[in-house]
């Protein structure tokens, strides 16, 4: 059997030093060869083995749609005639060239987040968070950022289709109206509606009206990945469909039970901010929070953990039960569960009792200031127990609040809300039995996003009349009789209610680009709702709530982006009698290999599969782009024969192309089997495999169609997110995986600095110092700094940035925000394989420690804006030069593409346009471009500019107002604005009162590669972990 083949010397050196990949840790020759080239071999050729066609497809998704627009420009070769088209009637308050911001609301899966959207002359170009909305606090997720790309996607559904052929709304209503009239007459017998969960109060009103019009109809609300388990657990505990909300800012000790609250859970933007706030090492030994994580996969929350316990999926509930017992034995009463806890089977395998004991001690010591957070994939029983422990520990009302959910209404008899999966199963049964005559699918794709055993796709045909309303012709839309095009959320009115009850209006930024309707409008038509346009529906709903003075209130709501903050009712502790039996329903820990399914961090359940920004954004943990892969730990990988990772060296002889090719594995489970690429991810629980949902879609645009493997094909509705008894076998096939983890390697230089709180408190100055981390002789320049002449960096405004590694969760929102702000192209999988991804900002992910159980470090890395920049010294044409404010300017029109600058950049943050990535855009795609940033041509180098367009806009605004100084906080680069945890701070380092200047003076502040004397303007705050001394000493002993 092949072995891990770790170079013991290098591995020992790396006990502390970070590594990015197993190949780097192993010190393999292939890795050294790969990393020593700036771009992998063959980067400047198009290649033959990988199809050029595929690249063109992805790049020019809309080539076929592009009209012949350029011919008219040929009239004057020197000076094409251009027209200025003024308005006939000027819109109010419009200043051409000055962007406008409108507040709106984004709803997804029953949650709502307030946004501010930037519009240039009426076309939305950029999404930001709304600081006054409590679910955003000014931050955005990568999905929010990327949603703008969907608006202008040329492959969007644009016309009504009947049986796949172009039709019209008129034809649809002509056929549909008699059907629905007949259904009205029989009370809606045989009518089924399918939708996702909705956070929109006005849509709920239309839905209620529809169900009154068709009393016998059934509404199937289904989300592939939902919070049903959370509400079911809370129902057992409180008698209400409720949601726990955590106040991490006040929590000193946090336990996450498979809860990825920094990224995957609802409210994660707020949780990230709050958690970062509680993680301040300057607050001292008792002030900084401590995070314990129990999980099977490896999430970014696991990466932020001080102590992470890897547990097999089926054993995760028993880890919490073990904790509850320990707490009980320390005198804590857990009402409702008391007797039950003792009766359960003993500790499951792999759960360290020392770990649980130390955790129990810690929690007991911090009653009323701890949080136990349970993840949405865990069964209801675990939620009930976790929240009961929160109650017993006195956290309720302090760090945890239970809020009545607005997503699930209890029925009249007060029964538990039906789970989405149950209603979908009922639909499948009804379809089978021929009980469905009309099927209306509103903005949902259950055919793809549901467990394979429901076989929904083969059943839809049994409904005589079926219609799908969606933003794309997806797997569901391809099977229904009719497909209707859906308006994008920036094209229609709506509203939303966040988990904490905050309500807000969603206003459109642009009228529909195509002849589309939104779900509320179609439903209103079908059910004869008094209002028919989305604007009327939303206004009428809120007019009924507001009464007098509605017009003034409405204008204020639209301006603020919030109707009312909070307002969800508290759910009190009132355990149901059934609580006791809940835990007994948990399946016993399984033997053998287990497989879990998780929502992809980027594509979610597949709804963003056709979004190139999200496909190309690397997964935060694996750094895979354009694909998912079966993730297994090194040990399991070894037993499968897919490690070592440098493949088939003896059989075929390793070449560089092979370095990026990975073995495939056949997964057999639940009676289904699937061949997937395998990826070794350090830190996975033993005997655990993880496959992300959302990939392998069939009916999707050109962007998503060849990306990844469909995990739903393996899922079973009895247990949709976990399976045991899994058979894995290596097959004789390789698959190219575009993983960016080894791109732009800094070859083990000490650029990530991290340590324990005790060390930090002992000597803060020493903690991140050069002497400790990077001993080097006095700095000397390779060139004469005086050549730079007039630059005096002590004068005027000097821009700088500080990135706090302690709070960065690694979520990648900054990367997508940067892509949106700076017109950065996507390049496609084949180009990423060649190391040509264009992201100006990359998120380096490092592992530290043991191969089986490492910790994660994240480091956002853009241009460091060196004062003494090496790139500038080698440019033969002066295309990259310094500004008086310390920016390293890039002048695209001077650049001739020698790439010397990139070669000389020690951080490898410069990106080269190998192809003309931007000339395939259709007219609609061009509309999403930020007009304040040049669109770059082939052969030009580009890189982070600190969003200089924002600096200039702020400067002109300040100067027009008569001020020479730009106020602190008036300029925030796109990355910093999107960052949920507020880790990126930007400003004038010459102003001692600015936030950034204060952080630069912080003892944890350090610059990279100081020995080169390049004086980077971006610096980092070293990361501090807060391990439990009781556990740390044990770990050392072990």
């Amino acid at each position, binding site marked *: 059997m092949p072995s891990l083949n770790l170079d013991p010397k290098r591995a020992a050196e790396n006990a502390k030093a970070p590594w990015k990949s197993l190949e780097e840790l192993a010190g393999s020759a292939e890795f050294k060869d790969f990393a020593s080239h700036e771009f992998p071999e063959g980067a400047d050729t198009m290649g033959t083995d990988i199809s050029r066609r595929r690249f063109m497809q992805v790049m020019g998704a809309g080539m076929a749609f592009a009209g012949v627009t350029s011919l008219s420009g040929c009239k004057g070769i*020197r*000076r094409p*005639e*251009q*027209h*200025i*088209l*003024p*308005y*006939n*009637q*000027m819109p109010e308050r419009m*200043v*051409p*060239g*000055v962007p406008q911001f409108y507040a709106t609301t984004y709803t997804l899966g029953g949650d709502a987040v307030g946004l501010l959207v930037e519009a240039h002359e009426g076309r939305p170009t950029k999404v930001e968070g709304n600081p006054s909305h409590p679910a955003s606090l000014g931050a955005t997720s990568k999905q929010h950022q990327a949603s703008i790309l969907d608006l202008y996607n040329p492959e969007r559904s644009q016309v009504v289709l009947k049986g796949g052929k172009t039709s019209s709304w008129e034809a649809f209503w002509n056929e549909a109206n008699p059907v629905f009239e007949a259904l009205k007459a029989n009370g809606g017998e045989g009518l089924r509606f399918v939708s996702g969960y909705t956070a929109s109060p006005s849509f709920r009103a239309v839905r209620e009206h529809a169900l009154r019009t068709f009393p016998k109809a059934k509404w199937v609300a289904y989300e592939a990945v939902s919070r049903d388990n959370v509400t079911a657990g809370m129902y057992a505990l409180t008698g209400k469909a409720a949601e726990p909300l955590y106040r991490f800012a006040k929590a000193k000790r946090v336990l996450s039970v498979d809860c990825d609250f920094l990224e995957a859970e609802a409210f994660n933007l707020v949780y990230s901010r709050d958690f970062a706030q509680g993680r301040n090492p300057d607050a001292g030994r008792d002030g900084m929070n401590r995070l314990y994580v129990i999980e099977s996969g490896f999430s970014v929350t696991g990466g932020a953990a001080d102590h992470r316990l890897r547990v097999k999926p089926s054993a995760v509930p028993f880890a919490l039960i073990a904790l509850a017992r320990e707490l009980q034995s320390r005198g804590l009463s857990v009402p409702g569960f008391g007797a039950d806890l003792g009766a359960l089977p003993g500790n499951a395998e792999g759960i360290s009792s020392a770990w649980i004991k130390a955790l129990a001690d810690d929690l007991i010591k911090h009653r009323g200031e701890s949080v136990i957070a349970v993840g949405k994939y865990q069964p209801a029983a675990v939620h009930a127990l976790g929240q009961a422990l929160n109650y017993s520990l006195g956290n309720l009302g302090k760090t945890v609040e239970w809020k009545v959910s607005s997503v699930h209404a209890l029925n009249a008899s007060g029964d538990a809300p039906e789970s989405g999966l149950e209603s979908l199963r009922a639909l499948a049964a009804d379809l089978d039995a021929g009980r469905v005559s009309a099927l209306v699918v509103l903005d949902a794709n259950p055919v793809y996003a549901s467990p394979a055993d429901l076989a929904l796709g083969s059943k839809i045909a049994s409904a005589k009349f079926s219609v799908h309303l969606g933003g794309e012709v997806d797997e569901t839309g391809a099977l229904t009789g009719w497909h209707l095009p859906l308006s994008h959320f920036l094209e229609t009115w709506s509203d939303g209610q966040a988990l904490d009850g905050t309500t807000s209006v969603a206003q459109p930024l642009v009228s529909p680009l195509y002849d589309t309707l939104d779900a509320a409008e179609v439903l209103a038509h079908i059910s004869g709702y008094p209002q028919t346009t989305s604007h009327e529906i939303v206004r009428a709903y809120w007019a009924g709530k507001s009464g007098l003075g509605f017009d003034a209130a409405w204008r204020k709501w639209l301006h603020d982006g919030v109707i009312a903050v909070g307002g969800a009712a508290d759910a009190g502790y009132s355990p149901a009698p059934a609580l006791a039996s809940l835990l007994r329903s948990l399946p016993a820990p399984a033997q053998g290999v287990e497989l879990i399914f998780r929502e992809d961090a980027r594509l979610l359940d597949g709804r963003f599969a056709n979004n190139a920004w999200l496909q190309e954004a690397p997964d935060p943990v694996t750094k895979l782009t354009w694909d998912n892969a079966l993730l297994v730990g090194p040990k399991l990988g070894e037993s499968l024969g897919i490690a070592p990772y440098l493949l088939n060296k003896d059989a075929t002889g390793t070449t560089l192309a092979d370095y990026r090719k990975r073995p495939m594995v056949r997964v057999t489970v639940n009676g289904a089997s699937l061949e997937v690429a395998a990826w070794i991810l350090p830190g996975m629980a033993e005997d655990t495999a993880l496959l992300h949902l959302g990939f392998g879609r069939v009916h999707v645009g050109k962007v998503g169609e060849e990306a990844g493997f469909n995990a739903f094909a393996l899922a079973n509705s009895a247990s949709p997110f976990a399976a045991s008894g899994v058979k894995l076998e290596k097959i004789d096939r390789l698959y190219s995986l575009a993983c960016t983890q080894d791109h732009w390697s800094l070859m083990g230089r000490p650029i990530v600095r991290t340590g324990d709180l005790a060390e930090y408190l002992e000597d803060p100055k020493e903690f991140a110092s050069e002497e400790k981390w990077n001993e080097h002789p006095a700095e000397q320049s390779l060139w004469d700094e005086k050549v730079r002449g007039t630059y005096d960096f002590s004068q005027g405004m000097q821009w700088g940035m500080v990135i706090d590694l302690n709070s960065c969760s690694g979520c990648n929102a900054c990367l997508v925000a940067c892509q949106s702000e700076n017109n950065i192209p996507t390049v496609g999988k084949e180009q990423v394989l060649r190391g040509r991804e264009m992201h100006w900002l990359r998120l380096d992910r490092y592992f530290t420690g043991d191969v089986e159980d490492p910790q994660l470090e994240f480091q956002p890395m853009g241009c460091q804006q060196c004062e003494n920049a090496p790139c500038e010294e080698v440019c033969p044409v002066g295309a990259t*030069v310094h*500004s*008086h*404010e310390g*920016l390293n*300017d890039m*002048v*695209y*029109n001077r650049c001739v593409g020698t790439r010397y600058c990139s070669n000389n950049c020690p951080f490898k943050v410069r990106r080269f346009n190998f192809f003309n990535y931007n000339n395939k855009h259709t007219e609609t795609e061009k509309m999403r471009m930020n007009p*304040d*940033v*040049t669109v770059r041509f082939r052969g030009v180098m580009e890189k982070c*500019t600190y969003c*200089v*367009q924002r*600096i*200039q806009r702020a400067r*002109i605004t300040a*100067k*027009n107002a008569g001020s*020479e100084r730009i106020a602190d906080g008036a300029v925030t680069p796109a990355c910093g604005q999107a960052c949920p945890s507020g880790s990126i701070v930007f400003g004038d380092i010459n102003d001692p009162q600015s936030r950034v200047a204060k952080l630069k003076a912080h003892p944890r502040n350090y610059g990279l590669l100081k020995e080169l004397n390049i004086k980077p303007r971006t610096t980092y705050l070293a990361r501090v972990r807060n391990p439990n001394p009781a556990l740390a000493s044990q770990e050392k002993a072990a």
Partner: protein
Amino acid sequence: MVFPKWTNKIPVILLASVVFFICFVVFAFAYWGSPKNYVVGYQPVQPIAFSHQLHAGQMGMDCRYCHYNVERGRHAGVPPTETCLNCHKIVKTDSPEIKKLVSYHEKGLPVPWVRVHKLADFAYFDHSAHVNKGVSCVECHGRIDQMTEVRIEKPLSMGWCLDCHRNPASHIRDRAKITDLAWKPDGDPAQLGREFMKLYNVNPRTDCSTCHR
């Protein structure tokens, strides 16, 4: 005689042609190829024969009545058709040019004015930043108030921009006189300009990212 007599002229003609050709090439590059010259004089025909000379010159309308945005935004702003109709609902309604204007308005179409002053796409010029610091319209656009049909007067090249960014004094004036295109300072314009530079805090920047992003 093998060759006819006229062949004796061939070397002279050849020489003259070559000299002429070389001169032409040098002149062509120097003149049309130079950014200082190649846009000056561009004067396209506009869809409606609007005369700046009449409106801004004879009638003395302030530039900002139509170019309403010049102090607030990047673009000076071409007026919406409604602005024209503020007067032309009653003035000269029988003129064929005004009839054209009205017909655009009635059809809801924009008037397709032909763009005269155009910088490269990668140059981000901002009107407000200049006008608010005392740079008059005339500095870049010339005597628009004397042009019946607008043409380019100044080179609008990068070198020409930089000339002023490096030595702005003689191009800065009282903000109250911005749109007075005929205004001439009493005495040394540079002397006066320096005073206003101090008053308005004028420090033109020459970093690349000032204009290119």
